[in-house]
């Protein structure tokens, strides 16, 4: 598979979706940026590649919004990294955000197949 083809299969993340994915990734345990990227990629079956240039601004924005908090810790491979953790506010945010994609899917579906709705 050529690189161009790979790119075509990828889905461009909609504004706001990345925040939700990041929060979702952090739901189980605190993680550093690299791990978050890996988790999202693997869970989406390689469909989403999170660009570093999007991930870090998003992480910092979430921290500023107090949805996550961070701590510097050592990884298993003795690498110093910043671990992010969900806050109570972040969990609440995630709960409201989770409904959105389903609404989106339903709305898009309605537009594409209007008869089915009737």
């Amino acid at each position, binding site marked *: 598979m050529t690189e161009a083809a790979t790119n075509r299969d990828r889905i461009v993340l909609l504004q706001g979706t990345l925040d939700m994915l990041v929060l979702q990734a952090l739901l189980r345990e605190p993680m*550093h940026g*690299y*791990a978050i990227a890996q988790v999202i990629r693997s869970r989406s079956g390689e469909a989403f590649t999170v660009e*570093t240039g999007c991930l*870090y601004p998003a992480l910092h*924005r979430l921290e500023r919004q107090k949805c996550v908090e961070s701590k510097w810790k050592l*990884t298993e491979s003795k690498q110093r*990294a*910043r671990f992010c953790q969900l806050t109570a506010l972040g969990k609440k945010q995630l709960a409201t955000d989770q409904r959105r994609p389903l609404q989106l899917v339903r709305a898009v579906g309605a537009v594409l197949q209007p008869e089915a709705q009737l």
Partner: protein
Amino acid sequence: MIRWPWERAKERLSEELEAHLQMAIAERVADGEDPAKARAAALRELGNVPLIEDVTRERWGWMWLENLLRDTRYALRQLGRTPAFTATALLTLAFGIGVNLGVFQLLYAVILAELPVPHPEEVVRIHVARTPFDQSWTVSYPAYQRLRASTPDVPLMATAYAEDARLELPNRASIKASCAPVSDNYFSGLGVGPAAGRLFVQADERLGQGEWPVVLRYDFARNTFDSPQQAVGQHIFLNGRAFVVIGVAHRRFLGDIAGRAPDIWLPLALQSTGAFAFSWDSLGPGHDVSLAKPWYNQPTIFWLALTARIPPERRAAVLAHWDQVFRNDREVMTEATADPALKAALLHVKTGVAPLSENGMRKRFTVPLTLLMALSASIFLVGCLNLANLQLARLNARAHDLSVRMALGASSGRLIRQIVLEDALLVASGSACAFVLGRAASSILVRWASNRNALFTFDLHPNLPLAALGVGLMLLSLLCFSILPAVISIRNGVARAAGSRAKVAGISQTGRQRFRSNVLLGTQIGLSLLLSTMSGCFAATLVHWETVDVGMDREHVLIVRPDLHQPRYTDHSETLPALYSQIRVRLQALPGVRSAAVEMCGGIHCGWITALYVHGRNDLTDKQVHGQEDHVGLGFFSTLGIPILRGRDFSSSDTEKTQPVAIVSRAYARQLFGDADPIGQRVGYEPAPDDRKFLIVGEVADARVNGAEREAPPVVYMSINQNPAPVNSIRVRAVGDPGRLSESVRHALYEVDPALPVGEIVPLATELNGDLGTEKLLARLAGVYASLTLLLVFIGFYGVMSSRTARRKNEFGIRLALGATRGNIQMLIVGQTARILLAGTLPGVILSVLAVRAASHLLYGSVSANSLVIIAASLGLAFAGSIATLIPARRAAFADPLETLRSE
């Protein structure tokens, strides 16, 4: 070294991205990739690290602050690179804003400030009746008591005017303190509270106290006793009497007349001691007036000014009531005049009120201070124009740099922001200096405006209007000299200049730009001409009053002020003539002394108002009979240098037992007798039959005894030996500089009477010139302004012309190469200056003529005489402008054409 919080955060971010990279590499290596390839792939995946960092940092929300700091650093660097411009701008702003603040503070304190008491609008002066001689609004003590008792619910306060007293403190040299005698309800009626101790109560008004209570002014208490609290309970001596400080008035309360802040407030009952010199008026001699006795029970001595606190809605009723109560006193007061029409008019006077602000102070200073405010505003404007011009030249010089930055993607908003920030820094620090300078300036101005005899004290605390003015001027200067030039320059100049360097250096300045800076320079010239003219006129006026013929020998007379108001002299007045004679003989024996004489008056403004009725004449109007009176010793006229025109001087044969004699001045003689000979005429203080007491034996020339700038008043001189009383001054005429005599005079007086305290010794010229407060204030400040505008014009022309010649260097090189002489080049540049000067001078002259005409009553001399000053000022400005231009012109003309062409 300071580390900003974001610097640490930035490092953390780099570390975080680095960790990401390391983990990505480690995973790829674990998957079996070649380490070098793994690194390259991870880097590729990671993307543009600085860009990621930038985008991430924007999420932090403090980029603006970071940018601001970076811009500030850049601005400071830029300012540091042009120290001459920075210094000029700082000084211009500090001075331009500072003087405005200083003058405004004075203007505010004199004209706008209200009494610092609750509801100041309720406090008014009560004008019941004018006194017969001084025409002052004062009443007698019995009348005051009656008025006050008739309206117990309206606080009616009385104040008197007393001369400065000698304050003695244990172990310290005595000082002069200004005193204000006030009624016991003065502070409570006004609503002034104490800063320490207590203020007057009714018991303080008791007569015959062993130790009198006094209240001190806050600053006076602090300066004299370190703190107001410490002042309370202190025992002091005033004019030899014992006093105890019972309290200190509120810090902001400086008395009820702007400028005249008393150091000490005293009870009115103190008058009974006779230790203080009070101002007074009376019905005149023969109306049962005995000044030596206490005044509190004499209805014919008028010495109390009234102030009341009445709500506006009750005013009419209260005044009508007082009119009823005062009716009898009004009738008594009409006895002073013989004119029946005047008597009837006096009876019909109704009690009125006047705002506290209506005082001599405001009358005297409103116009000069408004004028100074206008001049200060002009100098501020001149400064701003100058800076705007320098700024345009400076931006032109930076055009290349700015255009390159624009080409690299800087937005014009960002560039303007940077330039404005640079200037905002200048303005902010200039304004900080201006506030300090303004404080200093206002106290200097107060000192300049003060008479030598009456130092003004104002409340110069910063206030809201002052702060508003300061901020307003700051913003205005920022707009004028920074924002507008920056916007103009960036919008027009830079975009066009964004070509080659040669283009920038050559023709970047368009005709419009040149025209703009010419207009600025021209306006500056016009305003500068106005300022220089005004300063010239004020200086000429001051010089005129300082040298005008006052009818006395102003350069050689010394005024000595002894203190004879002590029981050992006042109780034995019959011995005084002998003492005066001894003093005269002893002083005249001193080397360097031509003559000496005693005088009742202590200085200028002192002769009291009197009336002389001529025997056998009943056609004289009230205006004709009134004049000024002074009692003088032997040899007074020759000592002062006042020529005797007709008749004789007083002689030692004029004593208490012989015919009372008088000498009138020319003005008084003309007023009473027209051109007829006054010698041998009989006059008296009262209309017939008491109009023949004095025989006029002499007529002397007029002298400006009330001050150099006041017309010589009509004066009648009586002999002190026929009316023995303590004198207030001894005049000594010296051969040379009178100032050198003061020590020997003091010593000689000590020899005559060791117990006689001698106060001040001043030359007459100092006394006369010390009275020229307003004139001095105007002349000095306008002089400072004029020299400053000259300097600014110099800087302006120099700045603009040197930047212009620098830009035209190549052109001059070509001209020289083509055969132009160096003179031609110089003429080219100087010609430009001449045109600007001419264009600016014309409107400037019109402006100056209008200003001189508007201020004509403050100036001596006509408009045509002052036009000389205008011409001189124009020449001065033209000279400054030409010199400033010649420097760059010579530089341009004497540059080597080869060098300039080669650098192309």
